[in-house]
């Protein structure tokens, strides 16, 4: 295992110390339990946004704490959902009296821990609305299963809802908006290589020199299908087609296209992916009105990409364009 780390057990703590040292103007980090809050928390009268999940997906979520996005993030161990005590402390630290939205990715662990936290927070008189993101079309949806995973749409929901909260929209409005983003977003990802969980020390799965995994999640879990390595055009087709056909997006729709790197894939490849996606959507008459290209929701050093499409309307577009100032995403401020 080759990583720029000290001891495997200290990875999360030291990365958080680095965040604290790097961005005192934007955020504060608390240790034991671990959570990150924006520097000016709590913002009185503003709905607060709290998210969290396993570490290893940076910049998500800690890198999205700041003006116009999250009020707090709860980082778990690598790929392991955080615990309710982190969430409850974070929730209390950012509550500005207007209620708190928990943005939860649909993983059994995340959902259950956030549920326990919300129960405790409500017990302490804080209004909490939880919204679960489940946008991964690689997973068959069913009433009888855990449903779809939450992936790329989470980043977009955090940005858009952060802007709405900044506008002093109400708890119900922000939660409703978050559900609307989720309903209009779809994602699918693939891996060229596995990643290595520091505490494990070996790759989570083994891929041959000519193999790829299609339909992966963000925790190094294997995907739905192993295939032969293929040109970018074919890979984009395999990811974007199920995404487009799931919603379904229609001719004339405006979308935000998010081409995400899994952590080990450089920008030059992401632009080749974007180029293919742009052609594919153009052929279907779908217009990319906004885009985001980069590594924003990662799986440690995994090489690969995920594609997220979000159907836009005027409000979503306006909120996307609103200023944001976080370590991981910044414009207009």
């Amino acid at each position: 295992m080759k990583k720029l780390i000290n001891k495997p057990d200290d990875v999360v703590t030291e990365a958080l110390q680095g965040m604290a040292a790097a961005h005192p103007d934007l955020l504060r980090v608390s240790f034991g339990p671990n959570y990150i809050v924006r520097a000016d928390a709590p913002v009185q009268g503003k709905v607060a946004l709290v998210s969290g999940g396993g570490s290893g997906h940076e910049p998500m979520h800690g890198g999205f704490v700041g003006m116009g996005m999250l009020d707090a993030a709860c980082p778990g161990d690598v790929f392991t959902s955080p615990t309710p005590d982190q969430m409850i402390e974070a929730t209390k630290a950012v509550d500005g009296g207007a209620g708190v939205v928990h943005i939860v990715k649909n993983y059994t662990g995340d959902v259950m821990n956030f549920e326990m936290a919300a129960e405790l927070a409500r017990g302490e008189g804080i209004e909490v609305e939880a919204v679960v993101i489940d946008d991964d079309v690689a997973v068959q949806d069913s009433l009888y299963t855990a449903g779809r995973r939450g992936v790329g749409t989470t980043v977009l929901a955090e940005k858009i809802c952060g802007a709405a909260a900044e506008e002093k929209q109400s708890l119900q409005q922000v939660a409703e908006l978050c559900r609307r983003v989720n309903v209009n977003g779809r994602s699918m990802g693939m891996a060229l290589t596995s990643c290595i969980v520091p505490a494990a020390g070996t790759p989570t799965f083994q891929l041959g020199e000519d193999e790829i995994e299609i339909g992966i999640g963000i925790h190094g879990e294997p995907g739905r299908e192993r295939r032969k390595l293929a040109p970018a055009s074919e890979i984009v087709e395999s990811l974007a087609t199920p995404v487009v056909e799931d919603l379904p997006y229609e001719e004339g729709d405006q979308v935000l296209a998010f081409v995400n790197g899994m952590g080990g894939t450089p920008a030059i490849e992401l632009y080749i992916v974007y180029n293919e996606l742009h052609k594919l959507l153009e052929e279907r008459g779908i217009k990319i009105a906004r885009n985001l290209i980069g590594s924003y929701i990662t799986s440690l050093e995994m090489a690969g990409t995920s594609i997220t499409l979000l159907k836009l309307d005027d409000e979503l577009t306006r909120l996307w364009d609103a200023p944001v100032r976080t370590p991981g995403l910044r414009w207009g401020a």
Partner: protein
Amino acid sequence: MTVPHAQVVGWIEEFASTVAENREYLTQLDSAIGDGDHGINMDRGMKAVLGKLEGLEGDDVGGLLKTVGMTLVSSVGGAGGPLYGTLFLQMGTATAGKSELEPEDWAAALDGAVDGVQMRGKAEVGDKTMIDALVPARDAFRSALADGASFAEALNRSAGAAEEGMQSTIPLVARKGRASYLGERSAGHQDPGATSSYMLLKTAAETWSGGA
């Protein structure tokens, strides 16, 4: 036979060391159909529990089990944390105020465990989860008592049922938890959570009855 507070502590310690010994094994099972951390998570949690046990006073079994549950909730994370946390919290509620366990108390504890895990995780038997080990273990314990079996014998039959339940997960397609994302690819692998749940019941039988 009754199980005094000290032996409940003994069981928890034994479970912790079984989990530590099987840390790699559980993680390996989780790598096949999950994210390869179940052993790491449970071991971190049970180590935290051992730390908490040291400072613990009194002989209230219910309080002990609640402390175990709270500690797991705040140290494990993932699915295992809330599930095992709730399991122990509910066991603690079922045994509140007891300084030793009669067979009926343990039956109530197992009821609480199953109800708690199902309330949290909404899994049914056959979904390829902990529930596949826990439900048969609870049922076998109760029916052993109904058959007139001793506490020790009932514990052993309960552990045997958990083992069968654990094995029954192998051919199943997961419908809950992370393994469900794999769809058909999840079949052919033993569920890590059902495996650790079997260990929980097996260590109870071993510690309290000397059998297995």
